[in-house]
């Protein structure tokens, strides 16, 4: 079965997003059995950030193979490239990239589009797998907040976070070469924490305040 996922992406981003706010959308069928290998892996035109959020919802709610194939085709080669730049051998990078994509399928229900774009979420999975598999080290995670990703995200927060993530990407790309190089090397694992100079001048203001607002609102709702 080849599903054209564009059918699921309604004109206008908020409509596409709505599927992530409703864990069990009406009409969403969950196939009991399926052969994952029937999927066509041909690359499609590059969807935008909101479309990727929608893809994750399709993977979570409908085990949608076509959506997964598109995510794989776009992100797996970038995960592999990132790992190789971080000093991982090509074979190991390939293996870890596959593992990261399998984790994405299994943990799609944990993706929270008010806290991360899909590429950020995939980055965190890749980072954690790199530490587990390659460095054989533990990286304790903060305690989860009392509301989990099961709560219906506020669509305004989702939209804003995804837009701010796009702005952050642009701002990073526009940084002077020297500064950008330093940041990238920090993420490739080439710098220790004491070698990372205080990262002043990073264009993080927008996304920071946005996440803070969302956290405040959620915490307020919990009271």
């Amino acid at each position, binding site marked *: 079965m080849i599903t054209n996922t564009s059918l699921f992406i309604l004109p206008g981003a908020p409509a596409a997003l709505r599927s992530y706010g409703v864990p069990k959308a009406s009409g969403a069928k969950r196939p009991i059995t399926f052969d994952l290998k029937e999927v066509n892996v041909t690359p499609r035109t590059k969807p935008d950030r909101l479309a990727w959020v929608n893809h994750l919802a399709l993977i979570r709610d409908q085990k949608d193979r076509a959506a997964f194939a598109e995510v794989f085709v776009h992100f797996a080669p*970038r995960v592999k*490239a990132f790992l190789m730049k971080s000093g991982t051998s090509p074979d190991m990078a390939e293996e870890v990239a596959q593992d990261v994509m399998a984790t994405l399928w*299994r943990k799609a229900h944990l993706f929270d589009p008010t806290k991360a774009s899909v590429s950020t979420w995939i980055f965190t999975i890749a980072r954690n797998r790199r*530490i587990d598999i390659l460095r054989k080290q533990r990286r*304790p995670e903060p305690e989860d907040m009392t509301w989990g990703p099961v709560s219906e995200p506020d669509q305004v927060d989702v939209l804003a976070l995804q837009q701010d*993530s796009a702005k952050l990407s642009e701002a990073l790309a526009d940084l002077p070469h020297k500064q950008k190089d330093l940041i990238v090397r920090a993420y490739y694992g080439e710098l220790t924490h004491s070698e990372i100079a205080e990262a002043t001048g990073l264009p993080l203001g927008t996304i920071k305040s946005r996440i803070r607002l969302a956290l405040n609102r959620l915490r307020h709702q919990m009271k």
Partner: protein
Amino acid sequence: MTAPMIDIKHHLTDNLLMAYSAGTLPEGFNLVVATHISFCDECRAHMHEFDAVGGAIMAAEDPIAMSDNSFSATLDLIENSDVLTPFRHISSGSFPTPLQEYVGGDLDAVKWRKVGGGVRQAILKTDKSTSVRLLHIPAGAAVPDHGHRGTELTLVLQGAFSDKTDSFYKGDIEVATEDLNHQPIAEMGEDCICLAATDAPLRFNSLIPRLLQPFLQI
């Protein structure tokens, strides 16, 4: 660990947060960072922001082709290892979850040992890149005067302490580097419990603690 949040004045530095996000911090520092973030919304937001930087860097990579059978290999992985995501509870005790995972329980599970001057400690097992301990300092008591060869992170879990730089209350973190010599003193009123991690042995400024150093593993 649920709302309301405590008022935190001393936060993580950008370079610690960036290294935590990049996954390059030593294990013991990861633990202190994760425990602080469990208390601190501001640093949690900061953490998401540094993760977003990592996401932007990864997304901007020039793709490197996956092997021909990579997609079907991934589907096999999915079908053949149906691992359930472990459920991670929210702590209702004194210690946030990441710390409880190292202690093997909450405050009442800590195995304290006396180290002199009324101060007690419990070493937490991590890899060798850092030395991590819980410290119990009686109200009004002092930790011996010391300097640092590397970085020392000290997170207050209960009570408060002061040194020449400032006062540190529950949730506050002090990031001490080579240029700081200090003698932390627990505030009166309540015993102070801290989580401390160092990536190099401390440099004690008087003889007795220096002689004891091998036994204290500090």
